[in-house]
């Protein structure tokens, strides 16, 4: 949990807006540090968390969370955290053994055309705590790291957007919880002219998700090039629906990731420059 980001977003584990769909995106940079922030944030806020970790192993998330002061193993034991380790699940599907024991959640690997219904079922059943745990934990939270890897595995953009829409409807609207999704994209923003190219998949996914989201954190590299002391910039974009139309508010910060956190500062005010 990065306290500087909390003050930018005006939240804290004690009081945060419910029903938000937060999109974390990056372009030629790496925004996965924000996923770790939100994971530790919601675990501290005593929410019931479902984490769909598709790109890294559980031990990675656990080791980073340990540094941020949260123990994933304890949270799992207490029933606060439901963790889907995509890498582990995928292996039994990609290399079918005699005894087929893989969980149903990663069924799309067998045939990507089927879609992500089974993954959504996993999320829904994980967050609908039927055993009276509603009072023990706060609102449900879904974290996905990351959605665009599904496209690499053959899932269509439409299926991924359907998945995110279903999750938003269930978690944000019905249960008043929060959803955080990471989507990665490596093209430049302006080269979106050619239409139904395969590579435009991540671009279209990003557009669709930013249409759905209520808060977007867009991470990208510095436009002036690589720098060792400033790792990139993040644009925070709030979209609020009010009676008199939609309000968007944008703020731009530069950031640097440290060993146990990250610092955010206004442009040009890095300690390396001043």
């Amino acid at each position: 949990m990065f306290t500087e980001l909390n003050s930018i977003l005006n939240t804290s584990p004690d009081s945060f807006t419910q029903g938000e769909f937060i999109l974390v995106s990056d372009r030629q940079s790496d925004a996965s540090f924000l996923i770790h922030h939100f994971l530790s944030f919601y675990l501290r806020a005593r929410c019931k968390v479902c984490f769909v970790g598709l790109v890294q192993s559980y031990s990675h998330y656990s080791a980073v969370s340990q540094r941020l002061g949260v123990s994933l193993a304890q949270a799992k034991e207490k029933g606060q955290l439901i963790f889907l380790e995509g890498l582990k699940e995928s292996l039994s599907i990609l290399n079918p053994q005699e005894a087929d024991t893989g969980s149903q959640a990663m069924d799309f690997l067998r045939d990507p055309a089927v879609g992500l219904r089974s993954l959504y079922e996993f999320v829904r059943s994980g967050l609908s705590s039927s055993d009276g745990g509603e009072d023990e934990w706060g609102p449900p939270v879904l974290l996905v790291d990351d959605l665009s890897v599904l496209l690499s595995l053959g899932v269509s953009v439409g299926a991924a957007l359907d998945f995110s829409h279903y999750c938003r409807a269930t978690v944000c609207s019905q249960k008043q919880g929060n959803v955080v999704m990471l989507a990665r994209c490596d093209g430049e923003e302006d080269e979106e002219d050619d239409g139904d190219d395969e590579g435009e998949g991540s671009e279209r996914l990003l557009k669709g998700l930013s249409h759905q989201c209520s808060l977007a954190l867009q991470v990208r590299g510095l436009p002036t090039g690589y720098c060792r002391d400033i790792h990139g910039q993040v644009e925070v974009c709030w979209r609020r629906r009010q009676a008199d139309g939609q309000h968007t508010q944008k703020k731009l910060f530069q950031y640097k990731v440290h060993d146990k956190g990250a610092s955010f500062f206004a442009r040009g005010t890095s300690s390396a420059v001043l």
Partner: protein
Amino acid sequence: MSVTRVTASMAAPANRVSKPSGERLPFNTTSFQKKTRSKLLSIPGTRPSVQNGQLLVSTGVTSLDYLLGGGLAVGTVLLIEEDRYDSYSRMILKYFLAEGVVCRHELFVAAAQDNPTDILQELPDPILDDVAIHKPVEQPRLSCEPHDSLDAMKIAWRYQNLPKVQSALASSSRFGHYYDVSKTMEPEIRQAAKCHPFYLPEHPTQSSPTHSPMLESYSALLKSLEDVIHREGFDVATPMSNSRNILRIGLHSLGSALWGDDLCCHDNPRHGHALATFLYGLRALLRSSLAVAVVTVPSHLIQNRALMGSITRLCDNAIALESFKGSERETNPLYKDYHGLLHVRQVPHLNCLVSQLPDHKDLAFKLKRKQFSIERLHLPPDLSETVSRVSRGELAGATMVASACGSGTSGNKHLDF
């Protein structure tokens, strides 16, 4: 096991009566043992990272190790985007395998173009003062009676009484070895290493009835890899603790047409997700095993840049080689010291928030007479007043102007006096 420990602890005070009793305590109580570091650390040819404690192995190229933050972390994949003629990327792959041979790791080599045994025959020759240790003929004699080999030293009789320290030097203090690319490794060293070859034309692939996005060739490769990892005990989960070893996996030219992939042939390939799915499975497999992989991909053939981006993101490290061979940069005096440029596409995120970023991204590689090395492209200004430095600076400036104007680089040679 406990019996032997008790007898050892009983024997210890008997031998040394004067020893204070406080030091004897850890021997007697079982719950109060000396904290030993993880037994993973005792694998030869590995060392823990200073940043995050990851177990690292050397790539064989010392400068590449430095670039990757000390070495390749075990359980990760290094993607090398091949240069145009696959000469330098193949060399890095051979360095990686040769380092495995010298460190006595096991190898898994897969290729569709050349037979893996041919690749193994081209491994560079290690420059070792202690190369005798790794020869299989002398290895057992050295381990049981070291005096024997010292007697064999006829010429250098003066050094007979020197302590034998070379083996320790090779295993712990120095990381990675040096190689002479002008010679190939001697066959007996090479054959001492256990190698699992995977040559696609000789490998039967069964067509799978499922709708999986993977190709049969990739599924067969993944299956074969998993078999080796489980059979030979490279799985982290296996309780076998007596001797752990590292499996080095070299996969040559994945994504080329010979693997049955149409990634290189079409803008919109039918099997566009096959390689990405394979790399996902490979990552899943490696994260739970003591193995490390180097994958080369002919990226200059892949038209679809976004596909290449998704392939890169599914590897942990990614570097790209851009050779000057055949390009007009070959004759450019600015680059005359180098053979190509090296781009760092991706650095790993492993068990830590911050990734190990390189100091600078302007890197070039060159192949010296015996050695491949990676250097900074633009050296910082050196302040010694030498004529050659001045002329070099002017030369570089003149070339930049000339190339900016679009004219050739001819006529700049006379500046070099």
